[in-house]
């Protein structure tokens, strides 16, 4: 039971980090990213491949964050000068291209079989309780990231991003380089997804393209919107609610007997989709609506 709870907590932390990343893009700057899972996958694979080559974890983690951020810059550069709709299409396409690459370039990624036996950092120091340690480290990373993003949100920089989100013409008239701010926000969010990916891969010790499907992106959107976009607290709370929701749907099996596995999987995905659509229609501001930021004295 304890190990189950620790595992759930680890996934909550991963999703919370992902949601914080998406929040920088959507919540802060109003940029829509429908391919978050692509950056997550880039982070996971980068760190896993490097670690298998013997690169120490801190460096493989750094490389994962940087590469995901770099892809964020590239994706942003291709569309950010245009209507926002194009960014939605290109990000979704990006995540599919990443999956296609992972599936087909077996020499690098192991193809459909993925990468196995990804080393767990500092594993040899622990006789037992490693999972608790890992969850603890991830929790600390989450707290640090949260504090960092809170600073960003309350800083003049965060204020500019909100201005860009609300009305980019006004922001531009005020002398802000709107394009540059958008690229930075998008890249930061992508890099955070890469961070989550690296920790995810080393935790699971196994990654494959089938893990990095669009459903992950939808999950992160659910977490962000249920908690409340625009504020970091909402993203973290949303990750807890999302995981509670996903786990409770596992017990559907006990209530609806005689249903085959693929049908149960379909029901779960229908529920996630329904959750997202209903939230957007009826409670778009989420449980913790964004509060107006007042300048501190």
């Amino acid at each position: 039971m304890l190990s189950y709870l620790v595992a759930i907590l680890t996934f909550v932390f991963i999703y919370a980090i992902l949601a914080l990343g998406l929040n920088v893009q959507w919540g802060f700057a109003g940029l829509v990213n429908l391919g978050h899972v692509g950056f997550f996958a880039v982070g996971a694979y980068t760190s896993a491949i490097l670690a298998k080559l013997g690169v120490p974890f801190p460096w493989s983690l750094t490389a994962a964050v940087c590469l995901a951020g770099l892809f964020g810059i590239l994706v942003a550069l291709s569309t950010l000068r245009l209507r926002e709709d194009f960014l939605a299409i290109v990000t979704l396409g990006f995540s599919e291209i990443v999956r296609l690459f992972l599936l087909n370039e077996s020499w690098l990624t192991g193809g459909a079989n993925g990468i196995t036996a990804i080393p767990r950092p500092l594993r040899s120091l622990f006789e037992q309780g490693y999972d608790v340690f890992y969850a603890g480290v991830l929790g600390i990373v989450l707290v640090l990231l949260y504090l960092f993003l809170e600073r960003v949100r309350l800083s003049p920089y965060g204020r500019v991003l909100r201005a860009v989100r609300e009305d980019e013409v006004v922001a531009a008239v005020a002398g802000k380089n709107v394009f540059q701010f958008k690229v930075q926000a998008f890249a930061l969010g992508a890099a955070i997804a890469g961070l989550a990916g690296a920790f995810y891969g080393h935790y699971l010790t196994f990654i494959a393209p089938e893990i990095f499907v669009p459903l992950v992106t939808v999950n992160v959107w659910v977490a962000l919107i249920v908690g409340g976009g625009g504020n970091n607290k909402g993203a973290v709370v949303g990750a807890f609610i999302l995981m509670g929701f996903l786990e409770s749907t596992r017990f559907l099996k006990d209530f609806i007997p005689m249903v085959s596995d693929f049908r149960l999987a379909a029901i779960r995905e229908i529920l996630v989709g329904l959750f997202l659509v209903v939230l957007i229609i009826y409670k778009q501001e989420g449980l913790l609506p964004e509060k107006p930021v007042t300048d501190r004295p």
Partner: protein
Amino acid sequence: MFEQFLQFVINGVVSGGILALPATAFSLLYGILNFPNFAISAYITAGAFLFYALNATLHLPFWAALSCAFVLSGFMGVGVDRAVFKPMRGRRHLTLAIASIGLSFIMENIVRFIWGNELRSFDLPVARALKFGAMRVGKEQLLILLTAVGITIIVQALLRGTRLGKAMRAVADNPMLASVKGLDSEQVIRRTSFIGAALAGVSGIMVGVDTIVEPLMGFKLVFSVFAAAILGGIGNAAAAVSGAFCVGLAEEVSLIWIPATYKSAVGFGMIVVVLLLKPSGLFNRQTAR
């Protein structure tokens, strides 16, 4: 070599014909509702499975099943608009795009719940391919192309020649002005939703006639659809048809150089190139907003 090239061109024209339908649908919906409707992938899949139920399960003949599936898909589009998009009229258009992703998940998984993940094919007589030298044109391919081109011509005529078409263009152009002039914009939206979902549904049927039906078939096609619409100039239904044939040809002919596993990357590549070089599209006289 040359004949191999011609074979790819033939295949490209056929897939261009298939793409023309959902590309037109996507552009029409975009023009009226002003957001990229990602649920178009689920409309494609749903149309194919409706046809499957009518044709393979209920044994209706081809044209009867096609007509029924067309109408049912259309009503499904109207129902979906009423349930999901109508409560959100006037919201930020990106929010609707996100909702449409959730919607496509719901619809695709309803299909998966009912029919499962297996690959299926329609109950159609197997016809021998016509041969021209070393080139082969399947009778199915001819059927697909003729159906697609026929429907495309009807839709374009509808858009240019009828009151509905005029009203659709008026609402797409300036909804405020259209409603001042007494146009019932909700009615125009309902009719556009019907046409859009029906066209997407028929394209799913065409894909099924050409290959197989499975729950992810729409999602696999959707980037080519976006590419066609963007190539034509997003929101411009007539240009989307030209875009569709370009994308169809490019995807098939590129198979000479790239492995088939990367075929779906071609559409995405075209999207990026067009957005970088000429975001207003290749066949659009208007400028991008």
